[in-house]
C-alpha cells in the first residue's frame, strides 16, 4: 500500500489497482469547518485533474479533483451524512471516494508524503 499526494491537496491510497481518495489534513485546516460534501456515484468515469467531488466549508466552496483516472467504485456516504468527518479524520474516515485505476503510470506524477510535506511548508 502506498499513499500519494497532489498539489491540489488530495491524497490517494493505492493497493494494486484499487485507490481511495480524500483531501489532506492541510486542506481541511485551510477550509475550516466543512458543512457539505458531494461525492461521485459508483460507475462514474473520472479523469486525472477533472472535477470529481465538492467540499464546502462555512466560508468557501472547492472542487475536489481526481488525482488519477479510473472508474469510481464507491462514494463515501458517511461524509455526505456527516461532513465534519473531513475535519476530524481527513485521511481516514473522511475519505471521499474509491476507484479502480485505469492507468497506474499516472501515479508517478504524484508526490510522496515527504515531497508533499515540503511542498506545504513552502506555501
Amino acid at each position: 500500500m502506498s499513499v500519494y499526494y497532489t498539489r491540489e491537496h488530495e491524497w490517494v491510497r493505492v493497493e494494486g489497482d484499487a485507490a481511495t481518495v480524500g483531501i489532506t489534513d492541510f486542506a481541511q485546516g485551510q477550509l475550516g469547518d466543512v458543512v457539505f460534501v458531494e461525492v461521485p456515484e459508483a460507475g462514474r468515469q473520472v479523469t486525472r485533474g477533472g472535477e470529481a467531488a465538492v467540499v464546502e466549508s462555512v466560508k468557501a466552496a472547492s472542487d475536489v479533483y481526481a488525482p488519477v483516472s479510473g472508474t469510481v467504485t464507491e462514494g463515501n456516504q458517511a461524509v455526505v451524512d456527516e461532513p465534519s468527518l473531513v475535519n476530524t479524520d481527513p485521511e481516514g474516515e473522511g475519505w471521499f471516494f474509491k476507484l479502480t485505476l485505469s492507468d497506474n503510470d499516472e501515479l508517478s506524477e504524484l508526490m510522496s508524503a515527504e515531497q508533499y510535506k515540503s511542498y506545504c511548508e513552502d506555501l
Partner: protein
Amino acid sequence: MSDAETPLPLDGWHRARGARMVAFAGYAMPIQYEGIIAEHLWTRASAGLFDVSHMGQFVVAGAEAEKGLESLLPADLTLLKDGRLRYSLLLNAEGGIIDDLMVTRRGEHFYVVVNGATKEGDIAHLEARLPRTGVVDHMKEAALLALQGPKAVDALARLVPGIEALGFMTGAAFEIEGARAWISRSGYTGEDGFEISILARDAGKVADLLAEQPEVKPIGLGARDSLRLEAGLPLYGHDLGHDTTPVEAGLVFALSKRRRAEGGFPGWHRIAQELADGPIRKRVGLAIEGRQPVREGAIVVDGEGNEVGKVTSGGFSPSLEAPIAMAYVPLASAEPGTRISLASRGKIFTGIVTPMPFVPHRYQRKGGPQ
C-alpha cells in the same frame, strides 16, 4: 503579510491567540481562532469579543453639523437625543447607498461609525459637502471592540459597574480600569452587546481584561459574517451598494418620517417614488433547500432561465444547521413562501423567501419597542 495590509493595534494580540489572519479592507484581520462554527455558537450562547478597529470612527462638529449631516442622510437628527444612536445611510443623488453607518449625538458633536473599506471615501464625501463650519475629526488614534452575546452584559458589568443600565441604542462615556471608553449598547450579531471605542494605546489592555472574563472568547471575522447573516443584517459592498436604494434594501426604517415627507437629502425623488409605487426589486432572505450553501454571486433565474436577480450573501447557518442567503428578487417574488430558482456552480437550487431575521434578535430593549 503584504505591504498593502496595515496591521491594526491588536495585530500581535490576535496572532498570540492563534488567529488565522487574512487581508480585509486593507488590513490584516483575524478570520478565525478555533473555528467559525464554534465561535459563532459561543457568541450566541455566551459572549464574543470582536476587534473591529478597521471600521471608520469620526466626529462631525461645528455649528451646522446637524444641518450638514441631514443634507447627506435620511435621518431626522432633530429627534436624536443626546447619547442616542441611529442607523443611517449616506446616499447619492440617485438614492443609491454610499455607505451605512451609526450616528450618535454626543453633546455638541456627532460621533459616526462607518465601514472600514469605505471610510476614506466617506470622509472625503463629508468634507466636500459639509458647511464651512463643519469639522471632521478622523479619530485615527481610536480602536473599536465589540462584545456580543447574552452574557456580554455580565462580563462587562464586572469591569464597568452600572453598564447594565445602558439601554439599547444608547451610548455613554465610561472608564475601564483607567482607560477612557465610549460604550454603546449596539452591535452586528442580533444579540445583546456593546461596542467599545477606546484609544489604540489602551486596546491591548482592554482586550486582555475582556478576554479574561470566563464568558468571553475572541471571535474572528468569519463568525461575524455568519452571525450578521442569521440576524438578517446587510453587509455593505455585498448586500448594499451605490446601485441599491434603501427601499430595495428593506431599510425603510432608516428613512425618518419627517425626512420622507420633506426630502432635502440626496436621492429623495427616487426614494419617494419607490415608497409610493414600490421598488422594482427587493432584498429578501432565502432558506436554501438541501444542505449545499449558495454563495454571493449566484443568479436568481425565472421559469425560462433568464437572470432576474442575484444572491448578495450566502452561507451556512451554524445556528439553524442549514444554508441561508440574502438576494435581490423582483418585487412579485418577494412574498414570504415564494420559491426562487438559483443558478450556482452549474446547478439549480431552490430558495424559499423567508422573513428576516433568520434567528430572532435578542436586543435588551428597555421600556418597550423603540
